[in-house]
């Protein structure tokens, strides 16, 4: 293939190494950036472009943020002025579409067992992430299991979802809770709207995640939450529950493997609305 390489002297800025294969390669002389498209200029990929593998210090390619949303079929880019979201346009009349920038944390093993005390906040996953002032789509699935049958409990119906981090957020949307008690099992839903889900000292209920039909010794709770979180103060986001009831020794509770949370930044209007 023909190679166009950066030279080593000012008098030989470009080194051309032609051959007969008919393909062109850009090569640098020490730099890790082979090609830069200057600001304000568009790129069009009408033929195949092959990019190198990423390294620990460099992604294969980086797209700068734009102030013009993708608007014609095939357009793509990072629209960064207000949303910092990648967008693409599948069809001109469709308008701009958001490429969901998902953040996910999923458990791959059962958590350690713990006891719950009513009113105390517990981190669901034991992790936090930083969020900034923006709107996020959230999806949360938790599967809690009560271990041990010595003690019954009550009051878990007011177990809520809260953020125990330093960020301040408001949740709007819907949550559903399902619980199986023994072999009978029941299926029920819960919902709230515009509930503040910030802080361990939250005094008003947040979003219910768990329903407790009765005092039972053997219990498993499935909670699902879907909606929008609006962050008004940047900081850490610690998905947590505020126990509505107590599960005390020798019994305990643990989070089953497969529980997960996703956060997708960029809950703004996209597409063509009228």
């Amino acid at each position, binding site marked *: 293939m023909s190679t166009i390489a950066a030279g080593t002297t000012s008098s030989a800025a470009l080194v051309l190494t*032609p051959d007969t294969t*008919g*393909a*062109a*390669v850009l*090569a640098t002389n020490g730099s890790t*950036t082979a*090609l*830069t*498209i*200057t*600001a304000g*200029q*568009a790129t069009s*990929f009408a*033929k*195949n*472009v092959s990019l*190198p*593998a990423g390294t620990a210090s*460099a*992604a294969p390619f*980086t797209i700068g943020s*734009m*102030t*013009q949303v*993708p608007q*014609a*079929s*095939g357009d*793509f880019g990072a629209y960064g002025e207000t949303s910092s979201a990648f967008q*693409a346009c599948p*069809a001109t*009349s*469709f*308008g701009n579409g*958001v*490429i*969901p920038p998902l953040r996910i944390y999923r458990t791959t093993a059962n958590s350690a067992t713990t006891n719950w005390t009513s009113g105390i906040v517990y981190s669901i996953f034991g992790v936090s992430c930083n969020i900034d002032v923006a709107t996020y789509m959230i999806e949360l699935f938790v599967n809690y299991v009560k271990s041990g049958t010595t003690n019954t409990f009550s009051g878990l*119906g*007011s177990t809520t979802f809260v953020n125990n981090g330093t960020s301040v957020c408001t949740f*709007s*949307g*819907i949550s559903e809770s399902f619980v199986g008690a023994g072999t009978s099992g029941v299926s029920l839903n*819960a*919902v*709230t*709207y*515009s509930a503040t889900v910030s802080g361990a000292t939250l005094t*008003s209920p947040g979003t219910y995640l768990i329903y*407790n039909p009765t005092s039972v010794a053997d219990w498993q709770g499935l909670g699902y939450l*879907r*909606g929008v979180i*609006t962050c008004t103060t940047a900081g850490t986001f610690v998905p947590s529950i505020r126990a509505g009831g107590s599960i005390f020794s020798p019994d305990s509770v643990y989070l089953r493997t497969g529980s997960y949370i996703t956060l997708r930044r960029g*809950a*703004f*209007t996209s*597409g063509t*609305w*009228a």
Partner: protein
Amino acid sequence: MTTLTATTSTTTITGDTTGTLVFNVGSGPTTALTLNTDQTATFTSPLVSTGTNPHNIAAGTLKTSPTAGDVEYDGGVFYATPTTGQRAVVQTLAQGISASTYNGPINTTYVKLVNSGTNGALYVVAGYIYLFEVVLVSTVNGGGTNSRTPQFVLVNSAVSGAATLTFSPFVMNSTLYPAATINVAPYWNVNQQQAYSQGSPTGGASGNANFTTASVSSVNTLAMYGRGIFQVSTSGYFSPAYALTNTVSVAYQNRPGTFFTVTPLGYSASTSLTIGSWA
């Protein structure tokens, strides 16, 4: 434009005065540009004027055997292949999300589901198969104890040029809450999960593609969650909306966080759609 062309005998640079740089291949190769290993490309294109295209992939034919790292566009949707042979659609969501409270229905007149655009109507394109997702949270602001039946409608005539859609069976899940017990257990009142299937609703009033909850007295909060697939046969506007089956004294209040999203999954003449390696 200035053209860098790999030829059979020499690498040529052809200059002109238009200021555009183009990479051409000679006969044979289909790859116009390759960057050497450990080198990156930086596309810094803060395009500032409306009407100027950002980065663009020309529509083409999908590879017969996609390999890991491929990004493709066939004129319908974008694809990415995370592992060889596992091509998948890159979701490009059109979404409307209500940021503030606004009046919902008070009677049988349909009201837009989300506060996006004047009419809350989203343009959808013929030939596409879309995945949709909806969350609606609405409350009655104040008194009113009349029995009412909220009715969710997927298409209406709020905007001229309504789309023609065919829905696959989908599920709506709704929950209604008494005012006095919201956020206080027992916090459920009525829950209804309903599968819905209707072909080619064309918009209009009730009787089209709708989902009706149970009728409940003294309802305070209505919450709905739905997810399903539809196909568009005629391009036009799609107006998710809802109404009540009877008049009540105080209008519903649509809450912030209510949203409606669609994702084009593919472009097909039939309702059959396969993405990924299925066997």
